[in-house]
């Protein structure tokens, strides 16, 4: 099926993504789920809100999915990123890929999550047990890389 890239405010349904990448050609299917952790860098987290530059996030995600599908030779790719307020254990991102071979399935899944984290304009604000909230700034990211 055509690759799918979505940025949405509704809960992610992992099974729907799995169904989307199923194909008799695929010997391997890989589903990656990112979820909200209770503890991040030693601080107790009660939830996260995800914000985005929605239009650009959607177009960057589509570009990643299209590029990944083409590089790794499969159309069976479905990615969804959640936005809004998420509680601990809720799924923030799901990446489903199907491929004839497992080597490529693992490599493609990994490539997509790394690209997503590198360039999709989404931000997260952690909520802590003491009531404070903070935007997460992934340290040491060299911003120049993203400029053409």
């Amino acid at each position, binding site marked *: 099926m055509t690759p799918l890239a979505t940025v949405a405010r509704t809960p992610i349904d992992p099974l729907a993504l799995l169904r989307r990448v199923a194909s008799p050609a695929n010997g391997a299917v890989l589903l990656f789920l*990112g979820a909200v952790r209770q503890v991040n860098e030693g601080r107790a987290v009660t939830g996260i809100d*995800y*914000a*985005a*530059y929605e*239009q*650009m*996030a959607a*177009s*960057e995600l589509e570009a990643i999915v299209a590029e990944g599908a083409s590089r790794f030779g499969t159309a069976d790719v479905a990615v969804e*990123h959640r936005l809004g307020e998420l509680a601990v254990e809720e799924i*923030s*991102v799901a990446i489903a890929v199907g491929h004839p071979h497992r080597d490529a399935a693992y490599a493609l899944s990994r490539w997509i*999550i790394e690209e*997503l*984290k*590198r*360039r*999709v*304009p*989404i*931000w*997260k*604000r952690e909520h802590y047990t003491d009531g404070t909230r903070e*935007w*997460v*700034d*992934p340290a040491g*990211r060299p*911003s*120049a890389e*993203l*400029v*053409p």
Partner: protein
Amino acid sequence: MTVTVLLFASYADALGAASLDVELPRDSTVRDLVSAIRARPGADRLPATPLVAVNLQYAASDRIVLDGDEVALIPPVAGG
């Protein structure tokens, strides 16, 4: 010309707004736009060369900003 610059996350907090109208001469570059924004109150909390997107794509600092371009400052991304 007047360029509306979209702000997000920590940058929106720093500048106290979700967008800014910036007055720029014609043929200004992304670099000029960033300099103009750096004069605003709160902009000292931004890095020296924040990422900029023009029309939904990351833009180089020497890119000319045209009337009608959709411009945004992009804080370090943290999706996933």
